[in-house]
C-alpha cells in the first residue's frame, strides 16, 4: 500500500461515529475512578501537576507569612516581636521553604502538567514515579512546617554553613530536620527531572523534531538536566552533615581538626546552590517565551539563539559557584576566574532579553494579564541581573556580600525572573487547567500591586546594604539610621501580601464562577490549546502530526494524525529522539497505591535517620518490599484484546506503512 492509499483508507475509516465510539472507550480505559482511594492513587500527570502547583502555592503563602512577620520585626530598631531564636528559625524556614518547597516544585509541577500536553503525548513517561515524587515533596513540606511549629525549625540559615550547623554549634535536631527536608525534596526533584527528560526525548508527537519543540519544552529539558547534575551535590552535602551529627556515626567531613574542612561544605553546597537558581529561572524563561509569542502574535524571535542561551546558561551555571564565597580566605587568582565566569553567564541572559524585546518590538500586542506580568518581569529581572554583575566583581563583592544588597539582588532575580513569569503563566494556563478564565482586570491589578509592593520592599534594601546593614539580623541599633528604609520595606511587604490575597481571591472565585474558557482563548500556538479545557484524561484522542515550527498556527485543516493506538489499554506513542518519527507503542501505567506507600517509607526513613542510622537498612528493606509490589503490577497490566492487524498500521518515516505486531 502506498502512503497516499494508506492515508486515504485511514481517513475514510475515521468517520464521526467511529470517533465518538472510540472516544467513549478511551474515556473508560483512561478513567481513574472516583473516591478517596482513587484520589490517593491517581497518577495522571495533570492531576499530579495540579497537586504540585496547589501544594507549592500553599507553602508559598506559609513562607510568605513568615517573611511578613520578619519584616514586621525589622520595621523599627530594637523591636521585640521576634526574639533571635524565633527569627533565626523564621528566616531559615522562609529560605528553605521558598527554595525547596515552592520555587523548584512549582516549576516542576507546571512542567509535569504542560510538557506532555505540549509535545503531544498522552501521559508522562513514568506516571507512578511522578506521583511518588509529589508525595515525597508533600511530606518534606509537612516535616519542615510541623518542625517549625514544634520549635525544631532549622535555625542555621537556608544554606546551613558549618561549623554553625555542625554537631558542636548546631544544637538539638533542628539542622537535622533541615538536612532531611533537603534530601527528600532532592529525590523528589530528581525523579521529576528524569521523568521530564524521558518524556521529552521519547514521546513527542511525530514531526516535532528537536528544532520544532516549543521553547518552554526546551527550557524544561535543560532544567531537568541541570537538576540531574546539581541535586546530587546537595544530597551529598546534607548527608555528610547528617552523618557528622548523627550519634554512632559522628564522621569528620567538616571537622578541620580531624582532616575535614569547613569550606568543603560551602563548595559542595554552592556547586548545587548556583545551578539551583537557574533551575528556578530557566522554566520561567520558557514561560516568557510562550507568553510573548502568544500576546505579540508572532513566533518568538531568535528561536535558535534562545535555545543556545538556555543550554549555555546551564553549562556556565555550573562554573560560577565560588562567587558565593568571595569573602572567604580562598586564593585571589581562583576567585578571579569565577568573576570571569559569572560575567560570562550574563551574555546568554542578555541574548534572551534582547530576543524577547525584539519579539515584542516586531509583534502586535494583545495586552492581557499574562503580558502585564511579563512587563513586570522585565522591569525587575533586568535590574536584578545588573546587580548580579556588580556582585560578580570580587573587590566590590567584599563590600556587598552578606548584606541586604545581596538580599535585594536575589529577590529581584528570583521574584522578578521566576515568580512574575510564574504568575503570568498561571493567568495564561489557568483556562486550560480548569476550563475557566481568571478575571483579567483583577490580574492586571494583581500584577501592578505586586510590582509596586515588590519594589517598595526590595529596592531600599540595596541602599541599606551599602549603608552597612548585614543580612540575617533580627534587629539593629537606632543610631544606625536604618529605621526609615526598613519601615518602607515593611509597608511594601504588606502591599505584596495584599497582592497575594488578590491572587488567591481571583483564583478561588474564578475556579468556582469564572467565565467558561474555550479550547484556545488566547489564540495560542502550542499543542495543548488544541484540546478541550480542561483536557481529557488521555489528552489526545488522535496524536497530531506536526507540520512546521508553529504547531497550531501552521497546522492545516486536514493535518495527519496518528490512529490505531489501542483503545482498551493505556497506550501512547514513542518516537525517535532527534526527528520524532514514530518508533513503537508503549503501554503506560494506571493508578497505583505503591507510590504513596513507597513515599511513606522513604520519608519515614529520612525522618528516623535523624535519630538512628538503623533507619537506613530498615527503610531500604521496606522500600524493596514496596518496589516489589510496584513492579509486580506490571505483569498484571491490561493486555490488549486480540485486534486485527489493520488496527496496527503505523505510518512510517520512509513513506511505507509498517505492520506492527502487538
Amino acid at each position, binding site marked *: 500500500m502506498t502512503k497516499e492509499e494508506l492515508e486515504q483508507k485511514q481517513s475514510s475509516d475515521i468517520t464521526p461515529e467511529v470517533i465518538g465510539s472510540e472516544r467513549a472507550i478511551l474515556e473508560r480505559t483512561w478513567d481513574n475512578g472516583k473516591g478517596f482511594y482513587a484520589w490517593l492513587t491517581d497518577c495522571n500527570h495533570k492531576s499530579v501537576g495540579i497537586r504540585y502547583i496547589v501544594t507549592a502555592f500553599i507553602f508559598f503563602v506559609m513562607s510568605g507569612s513568615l517573611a511578613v512577620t520578619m519584616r514586621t520585626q525589622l520595621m523599627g530598631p530594637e523591636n521585640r516581636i521576634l526574639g533571635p531564636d524565633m527569627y533565626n528559625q523564621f528566616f531559615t524556614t522562609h529560605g528553605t521553604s521558598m527554595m525547596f518547597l515552592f520555587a523548584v516544585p512549582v516549576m516542576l509541577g507546571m512542567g509535569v502538567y504542560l510538557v506532555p500536553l505540549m509535545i503531544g503525548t498522552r501521559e508522562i513517561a513514568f506516571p507512578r514515579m511522578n506521583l511518588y515524587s509529589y508525595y515525597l515533596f*508533600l511530606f518534606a513540606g509537612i516535616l519542615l512546617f510541623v518542625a517549625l511549629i514544634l520549635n525544631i525549625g532549622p535555625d542555621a540559615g537556608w544554606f546551613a554553613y558549618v561549623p554553625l550547623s555542625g554537631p558542636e554549634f548546631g544544637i538539638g535536631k533542628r539542622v537535622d530536620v533541615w538536612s532531611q527536608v533537603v534530601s527528600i525534596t532532592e529525590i523528589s526533584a530528581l525523579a521529576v527531572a528524569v521523568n521530564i527528560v524521558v518524556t521529552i526525548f521519547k514521546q513527542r508527537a511525530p514531526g516535532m523534531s528537536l528544532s520544532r519543540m516549543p521553547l518552554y519544552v526546551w527550557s524544561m529539558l535543560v532544567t531537568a538536566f541541570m537538576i540531574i547534575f546539581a541535586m546530587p551535590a546537595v544530597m551529598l552535602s546534607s548527608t555528610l552533615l547528617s552523618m557528622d551529627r548523627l550519634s554512632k556515626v559522628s564522621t569528620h567531613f567538616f571537622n578541620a*581538626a580531624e582532616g575535614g574542612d569547613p569550606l568543603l561544605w560551602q563548595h559542595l553546597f554552592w556547586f548545587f546552590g548556583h545551578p539551583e537558581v537557574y533551575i528556578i529561572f530557566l522554566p520561567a524563561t520558557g514561560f516568557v517565551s510562550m507568553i510573548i509569542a502568544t500576546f505579540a502574535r508572532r513566533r518568538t524571535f531568535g528561536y535558535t539563539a534562545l535555545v543556545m542561551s538556555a543550554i549555555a546558561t546551564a553549562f556556565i551555571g555550573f562554573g560560577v559557584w565560588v562567587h558565593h564565597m568571595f569573602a572567604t580566605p580562598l586564593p585571589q587568582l581562583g576567585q578571579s576566574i569565577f568573576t570571569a565566569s559569572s560575567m560570562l553567564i550574563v551574555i546568554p541572559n542578555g541574548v534572551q532579553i534582547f530576543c524577547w524585546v525584539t519579539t515584542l518590538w516586531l509583534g502586535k500586542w494583545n495586552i492581557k494579564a499574562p503580558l502585564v506580568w511579563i512587563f513586570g518581569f522585565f522591569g525587575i529581572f533586568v535590574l536584578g541581573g545588573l546587580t548580579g554583575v556588580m556582585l560578580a566583581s570580587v573587590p566590590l563583592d567584599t563590600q556587598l556580600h552578606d548584606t541586604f544588597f545581596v538580599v535585594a539582588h536575589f529577590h529581584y532575580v528570583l521574584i522578578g525572573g521566576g515568580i512574575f513569569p510564574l504568575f503570568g503563566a498561571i493567568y495564561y494556563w489557568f483556562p486550560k487547567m480548569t476550563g475557566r478564565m481568571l478575571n483579567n482586570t483583577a490580574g492586571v491589578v494583581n500584577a501592578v500591586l505586586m510590582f509596586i509592593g515588590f519594589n517598595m520592599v526590595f529596592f531600599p534594601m540595596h541602599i541599606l546594604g551599602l549603608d552597612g546593614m548585614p543580612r540575617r539580623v533580627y534587629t539593629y541599633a537606632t543610631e544606625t539610621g536604618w529605621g526609615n528604609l526598613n519601615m518602607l520595606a515593611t509597608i511594601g511587604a504588606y502591599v505584596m501580601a495584599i497582592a497575594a490575597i488578590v491572587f488567591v481571591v481571583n483564583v478561588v472565585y474564578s475556579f468556582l464562577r469564572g467565565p467558561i474558557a474555550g479550547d484556545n482563548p488566547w489564540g495560542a500556538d502550542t499543542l495543548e490549546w488544541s484540546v478541550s479545557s480542561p483536557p481529557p484524561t488521555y489528552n489526545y484522542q488522535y496524536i497530531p502530526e506536526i507540520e512546521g515550527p508553529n504547531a497550531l498556527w501552521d497546522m492545516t485543516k486536514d493535518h495527519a494524525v496518528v490512529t490505531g493506538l489501542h483503545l482498551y489499554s493505556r497506550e501512547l506513542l514513542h518516537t525517535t529522539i532527534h526527528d520524532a518519527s514514530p518508533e513503537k507503542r508503549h503501554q503506560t501505567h494506571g493508578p497505583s497505591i505503591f507510590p504513596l506507600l513507597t513515599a511513606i517509607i522513604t520519608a519515614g526513613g529520612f525522618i528516623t535517620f535523624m535519630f538512628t542510622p538503623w533507619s537506613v537498612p530498615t527503610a531500604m528493606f521496606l522500600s524493596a518490599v514496596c518496589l516489589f509490589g510496584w513492579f509486580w503490577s506490571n505483569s498484571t497490566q491490561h493486555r490488549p484484546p486480540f485486534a486485527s492487524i489493520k488496527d496496527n498500521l503505523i505510518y512510517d518515516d520512509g513513506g511505507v506503512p509498517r505492520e506492527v505486531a502487538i
Partner: protein
Amino acid sequence: MKTDVKTIVLASFFIASGLIIACEREERGFRVKTPDSNRINSKEVTTFQAGETAPTPVIQNQYEDNALALSQGKQLFSQMNCVGCHAHGGGAIGPPLMDDKWIYGSQPEQIFATIVEGRPNGMPSFRNKLPDYQVWQLTAYVRSMSGQAPKDAAPGRDDDMQMKTPENSTHTQKPKNAAIPKSAEAPQ
C-alpha cells in the same frame, strides 16, 4: 483542589506524632529559673526532725532532656577547666566521669552538690562562682558523659580532635551504686 487540604491534614498525622516528643529537647530557655538550690541538702547529718518529718524534696534537673543545656554544659566543662582534672571524662588527677563508679552519687542533685560544695582531695567548690542554672547545665552534661542523657539531646562530636566517643554515641554506663554510696553518707 479542596482534596489537597485533605492530603495535608491526613499526612500531617504521620509526622506530627513522631516529633511531639521533641518539645523538651528543643527548648531554648535563655532566661531561666532553676530549682532553688538552697533546698538541696546532702549535708544532712541526721534524719531526726523536731515535729513532723517533712519529706525530703526530690529535685529534678529540668535540663536533663534539654539539648541547649547539655551543649552549654559541655562548653562550661572546658571553660571552667573541669578538663584540667577530669580530662574529657577519662580522669586524670580527678576521677573519671564516664564510668559507672560514682564516689559521691550519680543523681543530679548529688552531682550538683559535689560541684557546689567541693569534695575532699581536690574538688574545688564552685559555690558563688557559677550561677545555679549553669551548675545544673554542668550536672546534666556530666551525666551525659556516662551515657545517661537521652541520645537525641546529648551533644555530638566536637569540632576538635576526637578525644572520646561523642556523648550522643556513648554506651550508657548504669551507675554501680543506686543508693547513696557510703562515702557520701553523713558521718556518724
